[in-house]
């Protein structure tokens, strides 16, 4: 029996390893799509550069300066083509705004529009950006968050960007790695959520002490504060964080705002590094209460780095995908796919309404569905990559790729277990000395089979890069009815994987514009019904890690050539039903007047 048990352990280990890797074999089109890296061909030649902080952090610089590669998609000039903004992080480096010419080329217009030269030691370096029309003028504005002073750029009709952060009343300094726009009180104006990672008092270029590190690898509570900034409607914001009851000081790396609890108001899910996740339930726009412990998502502390939501079962429920660390032989946290297990007693939908289910508890189904082992996982997004009518997952990974034959993992694991007095002081951390830490990792493309399993196909469909991936954004850059993939890599090139889907698979897209609701329609919930199937998506600002997908919602339909209807619940609460919208079409939908 002992020998048999040992053999079984080995076999199961091999199965686990195999499940985390690709299906192998040559591309044969059996998954219905392929991805081809085309950044250079599209005119995008951009490589992220990392910052250099205080010399007392030099021995662990690759770790503490390991973020900042971000991408945010928007049609900033309203020409119907998806543009994107990418951040750089070295002092003096330039960010870029790639305008989509519509001719299969992108052109960097950031310098001309005033949003390129934004990385300076005095004001900080970029960690990410997120688009949102905060002044409801119909033009997407840009929030830039940094390890430094956040800045808000008002979009002047696509012709220029004007820095208005100081006038708007943004905080003086936030070491932020995540932010999002959302209308938490449903007053029709976009509010801002921004999460500190390092505490605000820390100036990474001029340390007063080396005791700046997390006090624990999984129970740290000494990170940056959070900000909820309420949009007054006059171009200024007020800090309502304390009044709303958000006091977290966890090390937040990602945020997603979505109506997860069925109240009609957007809740906040925070993926926190060095600790448990937080799920702030929005109580009528007046208060946020962390319900993560009782809902299940906040029980097991891990190293959260991504937050995205997707209807993985096509049943109207948003699952939350949070990425963590998995390094064979050292640390196997596994990613989390939190699926709500309980719905409201009245059923999923009543009378055709679009009331979301009310989850009382979430269950982590990442292992059983096959999306748990993704290496040192960073950004991930839900999207129908092969237009088969189900939500797939694209995940990027890899922390520090340096010496190919040397690993920092042993020293990292040793310090990670240390008491707060040890781990909390950067001076105690062993020097990296050019070693890798979960570097050169293979990416994951998980295809949803629609029956509760995801299959990993990255290598087969053409994703071969091993850069240190951070942000992933999905966008139809060629207006072809497919989701292309944009990946921002830390200290690496920006990649654009163009998607080629086999013929016969249909799609439909919806580009929403609010009237009573915020004009970006952020928070709108859209259910598509076709051929006995249904899928829900939402318009979100930030999604994933330091990323923002296109504003347009994309639904794959498989072989279905017709759609029954689409039901939209606008952020204002208005319901709208469109019968039989045409397929293979992008529909521009404006929020109707009246109730």
């Amino acid at each position, binding site marked *: *029996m*002992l020998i048999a*048990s*040992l053999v*079984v*352990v*080995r076999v*199961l*280990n*091999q199965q*686990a*390893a195999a499940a*985390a890797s690709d299906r192998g074999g040559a591309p044969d089109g059996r998954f219905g799509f392929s991805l081809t890296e085309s950044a250079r061909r599209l005119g995008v030649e951009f490589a992220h550069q990392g910052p250099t902080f205080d010399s007392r952090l030099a021995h662990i610089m690759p770790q503490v300066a390991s973020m900042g590669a971000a991408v945010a998609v928007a049609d900033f000039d309203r020409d119907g083509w998806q543009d994107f903004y990418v951040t750089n992080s070295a002092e003096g480096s330039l960010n870029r705004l790639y305008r989509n010419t519509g001719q299969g080329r992108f052109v960097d217009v950031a310098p001309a529009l005033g949003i390129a030269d934004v990385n300076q030691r005095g004001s900080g370096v970029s960690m990410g950006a997120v688009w949102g029309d905060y002044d409801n003028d119909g033009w997407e504005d840009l929030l830039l968050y940094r390890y430094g002073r956040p800045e808000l750029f008002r979009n002047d009709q696509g012709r220029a960007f004007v820095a208005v952060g100081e006038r708007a009343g943004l905080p003086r300094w936030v070491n932020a790695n995540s932010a999002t726009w959302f209308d938490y009180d449903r007053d029709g104006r976009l509010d801002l959520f921004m999460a500190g990672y390092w505490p605000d008092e820390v100036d990474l270029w001029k340390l007063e002490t080396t005791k700046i590190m997390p*006090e*624990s*690898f*999984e*129970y*740290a*509570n000494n990170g940056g504060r959070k900000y909820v900034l309420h949009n007054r409607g006059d171009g200024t914001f007020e800090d309502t964080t304390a009044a709303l009851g958000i006091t977290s000081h966890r090390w937040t790396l990602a945020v997603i705002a979505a109506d997860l609890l069925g109240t009609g108001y957007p809740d906040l899910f925070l993926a926190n590094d060095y600790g*448990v996740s937080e799920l702030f339930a929005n109580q009528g726009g007046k208060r946020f209460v962390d319900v993560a*412990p009782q809902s299940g998502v906040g*029980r*097991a*502390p891990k190293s959260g780095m991504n937050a995205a939501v997707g209807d993985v079962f096509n049943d109207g429920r948003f699952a939350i995908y949070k990425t963590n660390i998995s390094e*064979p*032989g*050292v*640390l*196997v*946290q*596994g990613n989390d796919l939190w699926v709500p297990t309980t719905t409201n007693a009245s059923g999923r939908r009543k009378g055709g309404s679009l009331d979301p289910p009310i989850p009382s508890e979430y269950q982590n189904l*990442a*292992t059983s569905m096959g999306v*748990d*082992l993704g290496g040192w996982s960073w950004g991930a997004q839900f999207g129908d990559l092969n237009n088969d009518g189900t939500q797939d997952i694209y995940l990027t990974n890899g922390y520090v790729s340096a010496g190919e034959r040397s*690993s920092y*993992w*042993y*020293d990292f*694991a*040793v*310090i*990670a*277990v*240390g*008491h*707060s007095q*040890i*781990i909390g*002081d950067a*001076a*105690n*951390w*062993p*020097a990296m000395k050019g070693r890798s830490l979960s570097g050169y990792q293979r990416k994951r493309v998980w295809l949803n089979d629609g029956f509760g399993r995801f299959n990993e196909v990255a290598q087969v469909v053409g994703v071969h890069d091993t850069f240190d991936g951070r942000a992933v954004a999905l966008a139809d850059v060629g207006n072809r009815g497919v989701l292309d993939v944009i990946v921002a890599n830390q200290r690496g090139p920006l990649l654009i994987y163009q998607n080629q889907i086999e013929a016969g698979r249909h799609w439909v897209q919806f580009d929403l514009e609010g009237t009573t609701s915020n004009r970006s329609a952020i928070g709108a919930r859209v259910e598509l019904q076709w051929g006995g199937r249904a899928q829900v998506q939402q318009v979100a600002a930030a999604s994933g890690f330091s990323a923002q997908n296109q504003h347009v919602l994309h639904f794959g339909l498989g072989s279905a050539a017709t759609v029954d209807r689409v039901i939209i619940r606008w952020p204002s609460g208005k319901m709208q039903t469109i019968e039989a919208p045409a397929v293979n079409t992008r529909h521009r939908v404006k929020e109707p007047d009246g109730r």
Partner: protein
Amino acid sequence: MAADAPTLASPDQVAPSRRRWATLDTRYLPPLLITSILLGAQLSFGILEGWERTGLAIVTAIGAELIMGRITYGAWPHPASAYISGISAGILVRSPFLWPYFLTSLISIASKYVLRLKGRHLWNPTNFGVSAVVFLAPAAVTVLSIQWGNVVAPMAIIWLLGSVIVWRVGRAHISATYVASFLLFSFVRSAITGTPWLAAVAPITGPMYQLYIFFMVTDPKTTVRSRVGQCVVVFIVAFVEMLLRLREVLYAPFYALFIVGPIAMLVQMWLDSRALQESGVRNQESGLGKTSA
């Protein structure tokens, strides 16, 4: 960890004065301690992925012990030892899968019944189970390697309680020798590698080592008999651990005990058998003398 550690120290082994000190059967002290550690850590910090994993490990260990004990000896064994094995596996093993919890417990208990020599098992069961699983299944299993919370008080309480209990069962010298040896060798490692000494010391401040120190290296079934011998063995364990750590072997303490423990037991058995032979020869000579007399 420790499976049968101090658990199976029979009441006879406890000095009368100590027995008066507390009336509780010493067999129950380690299970009580480890249960307190688990409950305290889970309720305070939520250390477990889920109760079902630890529950599975405990149920598997106890079930396997009862079945194998009954089959092997025809009697129901006391479940305290298996309980510690199960709870240790449930705390130590970290995996998103359920099967490692089941198999670690099963392998731990099975090793007690299969890997025996002259009626004694050679490996501490949990040490064997954990070492085997992390070695054979690196893609799916790791070992607890984090702090439980950031405050000193809970850890201090565990250290205090643990120390009292290993003292009560007469094994405190083993734990103390190991800690002293670890600290000594951490200086050596720091000097060799250039790593800050506090980083070299860091592992022993974590809960994994508390389980290791109080429940695994003190296992009376898999340690030598003399107090000096016990101290020497645990010093060698710490030394081998240092060698493994210099090779950046993450699970060095488990592998060190895995290597040194059985060798020490074999040496003990060889010494026992030699002593028995000598005693037999003396008896024989003595008998012969009488005869001749």
